[in-house]
């Protein structure tokens, strides 16, 4: 099933829409001009994942240095702050746990998700 999201010009870079589809909705994100769609349900404890902040994450540097990486590509659940890769829907700490992702298409100026 193809679900209409909005006209392409209404989803500016850095913005998101949550559409009614699937279980609890689907979040559609415009990250630097690329579109991603994820289920709005956190596989950890059922939180509204797509209402979380899109941010970066940490990586170990040399010694005890901590590096800030992947800015704008990590979605954090608003309940317990579990981190998800915006492109794959996989959690960063337990990559076998993931939220569902959907393909996004643009046709005649409208964004659709394939459910």
């Amino acid at each position, binding site marked *: 099933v193809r679900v209409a999201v909005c006209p392409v010009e209404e989803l500016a870079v850095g913005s998101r829409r949550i559409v009614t589809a699937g279980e609890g909705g689907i979040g559609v994100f415009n990250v630097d001009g690329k579109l991603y769609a994820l289920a709005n349900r956190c596989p950890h404890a059922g*939180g509204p994942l797509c*209402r*979380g*902040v899109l941010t970066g994450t940490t990586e170990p540097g040399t010694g005890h240095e901590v590096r800030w990486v992947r800015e704008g590509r990590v979605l954090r659940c*608003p*309940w317990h*702050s579990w981190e998800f890769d915006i492109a794959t829907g996989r959690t960063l700490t337990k990559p076998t746990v993931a939220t569902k992702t959907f393909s996004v298409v643009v046709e005649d100026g409208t964004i659709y998700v394939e459910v």
Partner: protein
Amino acid sequence: MARAATDGAAVERKATTVVDTDVHVLPRSAEELLEYVPEPWRSRSDTQFLGAGVYVPPVGLMRKDGFPPEGPPGSDPDFLCRQLLGESGIDLALLIPLVIRPQANPEHEAALASGLNGWQEATWLTRYNGHGRFFGSIIACPRQPELAVREIERWAGHPLMKQVVLVPSVYQPFGEPHFRPVFEAAVRHGLPVALHMHSRLGMFGLTPVGFPSYYFDMRSFHSNVFAAHLTSMVFGGLFEDLPDLRVAIVEGGYIWALPLMWRLDRNWEDLRSEVPHLRRRPSEYLREQVWFTTQPFERPRDPDGYLQTLDWLSADRRLMFATDYPHWDGDYLPNDIVRGMPDAMRERVLAGNALELYGLPHEYEASGTVA
């Protein structure tokens, strides 16, 4: 079940199927609380409120969708009702206000605790409680036992004050004799005593091997704080001398209590002569007199081992559901937490155990409650 209301219309009554034993409400501002605090304490500038001097988790203290249009999370009754009673499906909520932090001066802390109780009673238990689904806690400062007893006496008999809450951030374990009058006062008035973790900075962050560097360490050590208190309470004879004492461990984990009981029993077999005042095995006091809340829930991966563990711990008699609303680490879907438990245990964990421990109503008026 329905009954006739005074205007002739039927009032629908709903059975209590989910009790939340750990809900944190806040005043809209510090000023709102301080109105209830007498001088000279009201004007003290060193008062530590929620958010001040706290080891805040790196991801923040609150769930991100828990902020009402105005004021902090947990301060807006309509917003709280919608999220907690509505979306999470909670029937009755036991409030544990954690607005004030442990203060350096125990008389100061006792005065703030007293103000907090007055504020809680006037707002959440009265003005915001038209539906009657909120129940309260008497907050007392255990480091000043005399004032703690006075505060318990002040509220004892209030129909909505269902327990005494002590912050376990003290300099000595609760089995020490000078804490005894606080527990005796609770028992005298038939009130359970809940121990709920609070911010732990400075000396209160002490672990058996020193002070933690990370929030992660600190949080992981909450269970050890409770284990140390319970051990002291058993061997100090608190449970033996006060057989009606009922203690709830809130937000401190659960599964750890099992190996603790095994170890205490083993040690008692070897060392009983040091504590001849104990007439029963240590685990028997813990099994009979201590309750636990679920959040943050630990779930081992092996479902059979998990059920066996819950059974060994008598979860069907002693485990109570809690969300910890509106905190970042809350468990907001009751059915997820009891998933995999046998039906009878589920019902006991979601409601039955808390109804019994706190004497809460088995049904309530469902009309005019939550949008």
